[in-house]
């Protein structure tokens, strides 16, 4: 109707955008303040930025090891999930029966909605009895069980989009299933694989509960370390915020990269293509 009036609709949008981004902005600001200035009232709006907090948090005993652990475990778990998931997704995509898709969907939803604690308790006991607590590889496998349903779900969709002609051509030429998959199909769905992997990396990065109960010092991850910082350094706000910025920066970058794929993945099949 009224072109000028319709711009009014954006006002609440920007208002809420400001609300949603303010805490991030505030955390970034606080991270550049010094030890006293970070909790001054009234807060310092204009101040000389300093990197003291960043230096302080990175020098913390567990920090670098936890950062390294988190990256390692994230990549490891995604690697495992891709290895197993790509194979399984290929098969599910080939089999045309609707039942199988239903079961896959159910597995995806069920595993995603399962409260972590119902798996966490037995895993703690079992891993403890095997002496596998606080080790990287078991945690990678635990995380892979979170990624697998998602990888299978997304890749089944991507594999289904590949035109069958190339596959058939490869089979007629005598290629084995594995060769077909590796040489023909995967190059075609590579963007999908990358997007799915990046999303799973974020999930690993953010994961807190299993890391909390299954690690101590050796394989501890960044979220757990940050949580323990909160208990020890309750008033070192600048340090806490510096740590927070260092945690969320990679996530924000990767999120923007995979933004287009997010809606499709999150809805778990709820959006008609």
């Amino acid at each position, binding site marked *: 109707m009224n072109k000028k009036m*319709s711009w009014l609709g*954006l006002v*609440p*949008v920007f208002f809420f955008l400001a609300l*949603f981004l303010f*805490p*991030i902005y505030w*955390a970034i600001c606080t991270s550049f303040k010094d030890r006293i200035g970070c909790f001054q*009232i*009234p*807060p310092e709006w204009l101040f000389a930025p300093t990197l003291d907090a960043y230096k302080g948090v990175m020098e913390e005993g567990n920090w670098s090891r936890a950062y390294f652990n988190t990256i390692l475990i994230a990549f490891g778990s995604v690697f495992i999930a891709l*290895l*197993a*998931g790509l194979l*399984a997704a290929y*098969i599910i995509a*080939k*089999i045309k029966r609707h039942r199988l898709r*239903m079961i896959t*969907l159910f597995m995806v*939803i*069920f*595993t995603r*909605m*399962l*409260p*972590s*604690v*119902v*798996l*966490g308790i*037995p895993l*703690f*006991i*079992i891993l403890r009895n095997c002496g596998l607590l606080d080790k990287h590889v078991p945690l990678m*496998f635990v995380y*892979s*069980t979170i990624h*697998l349903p998602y990888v299978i779900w997304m890749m089944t969709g991507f594999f289904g989009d590949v035109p069958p002609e190339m596959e058939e051509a490869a089979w007629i030429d005598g290629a084995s299933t594995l060769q077909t998959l590796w040489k023909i199909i995967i190059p075609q769905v590579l963007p999908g694989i990358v997007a799915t992997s990046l999303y799973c990396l974020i999930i690993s*990065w*953010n994961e*807190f*509960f299993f890391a909390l*109960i299954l690690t101590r010092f050796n394989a501890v991850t960044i*979220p757990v370390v940050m949580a323990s910082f*909160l208990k020890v350094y309750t008033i070192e*706000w600048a340090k806490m915020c510096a*740590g*927070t910025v260092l*945690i969320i920066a990679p*996530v*924000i970058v990767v*999120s923007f990269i995979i933004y287009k794929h*997010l*809606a499709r993945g*999150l809805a778990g*099949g*709820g*959006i*008609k293509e």
Partner: protein
Amino acid sequence: MIYLSGKNRRKVTFAIFIVPTLAIAALWVVYPLCYSLWSSFYELNPLSSSPPRFVGLSNYIDMIMSPVIRQSFEVTVLYVAVTVIVQFILGFGLALLLHPFKAKSWITPMFIIPMMIPSVATGIIFKIMFDETNGIINYLFTYLGFSSVSWLGHPLIALFSVMIVEIWQNTPFVLLIMSAGLASLPTTPYEAAKVDGASRYAIFRYITIPLLKPLMLVVLLMRIMLNFRVFDTIYILTQGGPGRNTQVLGYLAYTTAFKFLHMGSSAALSYLMVAFMSIICIFYMRITLKQGLI
């Protein structure tokens, strides 16, 4: 002959392809789930030297009769109800407001940040902001003439504060999905409605809403299931307190197992959560399948 053996060979390959996934699932999901179920019938303390004691349904009966669990259940239900409703209205509303504009292609990505960052980070940021004496929120409140609030210390307000964090963190989820849904709507009904001279309200109510209904239900159910699992923010912000006013089921299960070392009871409680979750899961499946969304 050769054709047959090729087909059989393919069948074997197919079977082998599924094995890694099944193996991982069996070892790391199915086995722990069964162990959890088994341990819910025992009194289990892994750090004590005495063996687990079989108690039958005792854990479950204690659970049903326990006022602590009942309170936790009420807290969780209240938490889920309020946050899901607000997240949905706010997220859907923002998606609708953004929809007519081309600018949404760069505005919507900016909204997703709260959703993607680790919940530990969210907890830390809000803990600092909610601080009673030096927090920025109370500063703004006093600046505007209101009195400062004990966001995390007051027994009634603490739950509200935690809900605010949840709403902040996951409204973008609703926004993102509903925005994608709005973008994928067919244009023909709208053109026909314009020709017929329908009002904007009528278009919204009789075209947009019915077309979006399946997606709306999917999003609602997903948020219910995901908000039900809340743990990280409670752990960071309130640890279930003050008293037990923010002790959601997930957090209670954690403390029962790892603080009080009653792993059998905790397993029983977690299975209660699974049961509840499965009911919602089934609704979700039925709707997704009925609407042909897979």
